[in-house]
């Protein structure tokens, strides 16, 4: 058997190649986020000051909803032709698969964020009063919080009949602490206020949920 790291790399490379060819997840996420940006911008037409107050919530809610599209897509590929069974009968560890899926989703959502952030800035006339590097930290930690739980719960709802509905039902309540911290941190930084407490909260959330998901994933993968 390959080292777990090697299997994670192989699975990640496979997922990236498949997404590069189909662009299913990224296109759906982009389209959805674009709609949110444009519709909200025209609905409220906020001033620069108002934008700083609402942008944190708006950005993260848009990314959360968009991420759900990618999260469902990742596992949908694995149940087509029951390919997941081929992984399950192999000696490869479950944690390698989970790590690859989380990293893949992290890349997809990060690409989305990189493409959408300039649009948010333009449409909402955003100008941060706090340091940009802190926003980058919040973006990385917040995205990880979304995808680590999302990947886990998407796997959990894999065998349910209406998994597209199940995923948000499971994911959104558990993401509330992280979402709250992400929104508060983003708003605080945009307004030039301290966000240290919220950043530590997201980091702690990431640490706890990454550990729990890694520990429980094998049970989820082999559940009947």
């Amino acid at each position, binding site marked *: *058997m*390959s080292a777990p790291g090697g299997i994670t790399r192989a*699975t990640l490379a*496979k997922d990236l*190649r498949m997404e590069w060819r189909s662009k299913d997840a990224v296109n759906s996420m982009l389209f959805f986020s674009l709609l949110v940006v444009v519709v909200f911008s025209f609905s409220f037409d906020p001033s620069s000051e108002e934008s700083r107050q609402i942008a944190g919530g708006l950005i993260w809610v848009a990314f959360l909803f968009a991420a759900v599209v990618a999260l469902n897509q990742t596992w949908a590929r694995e149940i087509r032709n029951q*390919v997941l069974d081929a*992984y*399950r*009968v192999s000696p490869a560890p479950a944690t390698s698969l989970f790590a690859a899926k989380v990293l893949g989703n992290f890349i997809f959502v990060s690409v989305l964020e990189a493409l959408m952030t300039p649009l948010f800035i333009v449409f909402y006339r955003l100008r941060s009063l706090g340091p940009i590097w802190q926003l980058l930290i919040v973006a990385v930690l917040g995205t990880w919080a979304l995808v680590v739980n999302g990947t886990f719960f998407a796997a959990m709802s894999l065998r349910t009949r209406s998994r597209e509905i199940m995923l948000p039902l499971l994911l959104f309540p558990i993401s509330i602490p992280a979402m709250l911290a992400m929104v508060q941190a983003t708003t605080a930084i945009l307004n030039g206020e301290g966000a240290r407490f919220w950043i530590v909260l997201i980091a702690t959330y990431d640490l706890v949920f990454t550990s729990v998901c890694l520990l429980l994933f094998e049970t989820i993968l*082999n559940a009947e």
Partner: protein
Amino acid sequence: MTDTAPAAVITVHNLIKQFGRFAALRGVTAEFAGGKMFAILGDNGAGKTTLLRTLAGLNRPTSGEVRVLGARDLREVSARVGYMAHPSLLYDEMNGMENLRYFAQLYGIADRDRCTEAIRAVGLSPALVRPVGQYSQGMKQRMSLARALLNDPQILLLDEPFSNVDLKSAHDIVRLLAELRDQGKTLFVVTHQASLLEGVADEFVWMEQGKITDRTRMFATGAGQQELRELQR
């Protein structure tokens, strides 16, 4: 005098598998010797696929015991078992070689020639660039078999390897399976086309309502041999 009977590679004792209130396997007890080909036969819902999936470690027994190559924890021996399911277990978006290279890495197979060998063994070309989704059903079946052969398994569990395959391809697959058996591998072939394995399988295992009801050495309809003769003509 020494006993020359081949040792059992799989033993199943009072195996019960329930899905909710439905019992798919109802107390299966059997021993299967190594280096033989077993054809698992029975009507739809007889428990053939469930038995195969349980031997592959995909279904956990509700009760009873399964030992594969002496191990109770089937993950310990998963590198020595090959499994081919009714669906292809392949990614439609990638071509055959890309699929096999990925699965080879799961088994720690670094030798890229192994993928080429497996594809050639099932009568396909390693140079096929089309994604698997565009293969014919017969090609998918062959590529699926190539995936199952990739890790050079000691035990091969094959679920319906001849379904949706034309007669010539089916006989090609039978010949390949016979070769693998002659190399000392143990094969379990779930099929509804038992006549194809006539004269090839060492034992026909009959299942009914979740139980093994009979084990015979012959499946004597003559239909398989007749089909083969017609094909050769």
